[in-house]
C-alpha cells in the first residue's frame, strides 16, 4: 500500500515537472511554431493530469479542444500570419518593473489563497452535494451534463453565443484564405478518417447523457472531420454550399436553446425550466443542434470564414 502511494507521488512529480517545463519552454521560446508545438503537447499532458485528478470530463474536453482542435486552429493561424511582425508591448524599464511587481503580487495572492483553502476543500465539496441530490430530476444521469444543460443551462447558452461572437471576430479580422495543395495519397487517407471522426462525434454526443462527453467535445471532432476534408481538397469542407444554410447552422444551437427557453417561459414554466418528464428530450435536441453549430463554427474558424468561390 505504501509503495502504491509512493508510486503515485513519483508519477505526480513527473507530470508536474513535464507540465512546468512545457509551459516555460512554450512561453520563453522565440520561435512561434515551436511555441505552438509545445502548447499542443502541453494540452496532451494536461489531459493526463486531469485524468490523474479523477476528472475524466475535463480530460476528454482537454484532449478534444485543447490538444486537438485548439492545436489545429493555432497552426492554421500561424500559417496565415504572413507578415512576421510582432506587436511589441512597451519595453520601458518602468513598465517592465511595474508588470513584474504586479505579477509577483498576484502570484503570491493566488498561492496564499490556495494554501489557505486546501485543508478545507474536501469538506466544502461534501457539503455541496446538491448536484447529486437533484440529478434524478435533471433528465440525464451524468452529473456534468446535468450541470451544463440543465442546472446551469444559462451559462452554456451564453457560451454558445461567445462562439458565435468569436467566428464573427475572425471574419472581422479579414483573413485571406489560402488554397491548399491537394495530395492524392493524403486525400485517400482522409476519406478513411473522416467517417471515423463523424462516428466518434456521434458516440461522444450520445455518451454525454450517462458518462463524460457532450456537445463541445463532439463538435470538436466534427470540426476535425471538416478540417481534414478541407485539406483533402474539398473547398467547402463538407459544409453546405448555400450560404444562408451555413449561417443557419451557425446559429442553430444557440437559437434552439433560446427558443426552448423562451417557449417554456411562454408556456408558464419559467425560462429554461424543462418539465421533468420531457427534460431528457429537450436536452438531447439542444445538444444535437449545438454539436452541429460548434462543429461548423470551429471548421469555419479554421478556414477563416464562409468559403467564397475558389479558383481551381
Amino acid at each position, binding site marked *: 500500500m505504501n509503495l502504491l502511494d509512493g508510486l503515485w507521488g513519483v508519477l505526480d512529480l513527473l507530470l508536474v515537472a513535464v507540465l512546468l517545463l512545457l509551459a516555460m519552454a512554450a512561453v520563453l521560446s522565440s520561435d512561434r511554431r515551436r511555441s505552438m508545438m509545445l502548447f499542443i503537447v502541453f494540452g496532451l499532458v494536461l489531459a493526463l493530469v486531469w485524468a490523474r485528478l479523477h476528472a475524466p470530463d475535463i480530460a476528454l474536453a482537454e484532449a478534444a479542444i485543447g490538444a486537438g482542435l485548439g492545436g489545429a486552429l493555432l497552426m492554421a493561424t500561424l500559417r496565415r500570419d504572413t507578415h512576421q511582425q510582432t506587436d511589441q508591448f512597451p519595453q520601458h524599464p518602468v513598465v517592465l518593473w511595474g508588470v513584474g511587481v504586479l505579477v509577483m503580487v498576484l502570484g503570491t495572492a493566488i498561492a496564499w489563497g490556495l494554501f489557505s483553502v486546501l485543508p478545507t476543500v474536501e469538506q466544502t465539496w461534501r457539503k455541496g452535494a446538491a448536484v447529486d441530490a437533484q440529478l434524478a430530476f435533471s433528465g440525464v444521469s451524468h452529473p456534468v451534463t446535468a450541470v451544463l444543460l440543465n442546472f446551469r443551462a444559462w451559462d452554456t447558452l451564453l457560451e454558445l453565443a461567445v462562439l458565435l461572437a468569436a467566428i464573427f471576430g475572425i471574419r472581422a479580422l479579414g483573413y485571406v484564405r489560402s488554397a491548399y495543395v491537394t*495530395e492524392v495519397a*493524403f486525400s485517400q487517407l482522409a476519406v*478513411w478518417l473522416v467517417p*471515423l471522426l463523424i462516428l466518434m462525434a456521434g458516440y461522444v454526443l450520445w455518451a454525454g447523457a450517462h458518462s463524460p462527453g457532450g456537445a463541445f467535445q463532439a463538435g470538436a471532432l466534427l470540426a476535425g472531420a471538416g478540417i481534414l476534408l478541407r485539406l483533402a481538397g474539398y473547398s467547402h469542407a463538407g459544409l453546405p454550399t448555400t450560404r444562408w444554410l451555413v449561417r443557419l447552422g451557425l446559429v442553430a444551437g444557440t437559437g434552439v436553446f433560446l427558443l426552448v427557453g423562451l417557449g417554456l417561459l411562454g408556456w408558464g414554466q419559467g425560462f429554461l425550466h424543462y418539465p421533468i418528464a420531457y427534460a431528457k428530450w429537450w436536452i438531447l435536441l439542444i445538444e444535437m443542434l449545438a454539436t452541429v453549430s460548434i462543429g461548423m463554427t470551429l471548421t469555419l474558424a479554421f478556414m477563416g470564414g464562409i468559403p467564397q468561390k475558389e479558383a481551381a
Partner: protein
Amino acid sequence: MILDALSVLLLLLGLFFFVSGLLGLWRFPDTFARLHALTKADNLGLGLVMTGLLFQVPDVLWAIKFILVWLLALVASAVNAHLIAVFLHRQQEGHDESA
C-alpha cells in the same frame, strides 16, 4: 496468476520498444531513419502495452475499445508518418525555405 505474469511480460516488452524509440530519436543520424525507428516503436510499443492490458480488463467492452484504440492508432500513425515524410522530403528538395 499466469495471466498477470503474461501481462507483465508484454508490458515490459512494450516499454522496451518505447525506450528503443526514444533511443532512436536521440541517436539516429538522419531524420528519415528516426522516422522509421519511431513509427515502429510506437506502433509496437502501444500494441504490446495494449495487449498486456487486455488481460486486466473487467469486461469484453473494454477489450473491444482497447483494440479499437490500437487499430486507430495504427491508421493514425501511418497517416502521420506519411505526412511527416512528405513534409521532410519537400523541405530537403528545397521547396520550402521557411522551416
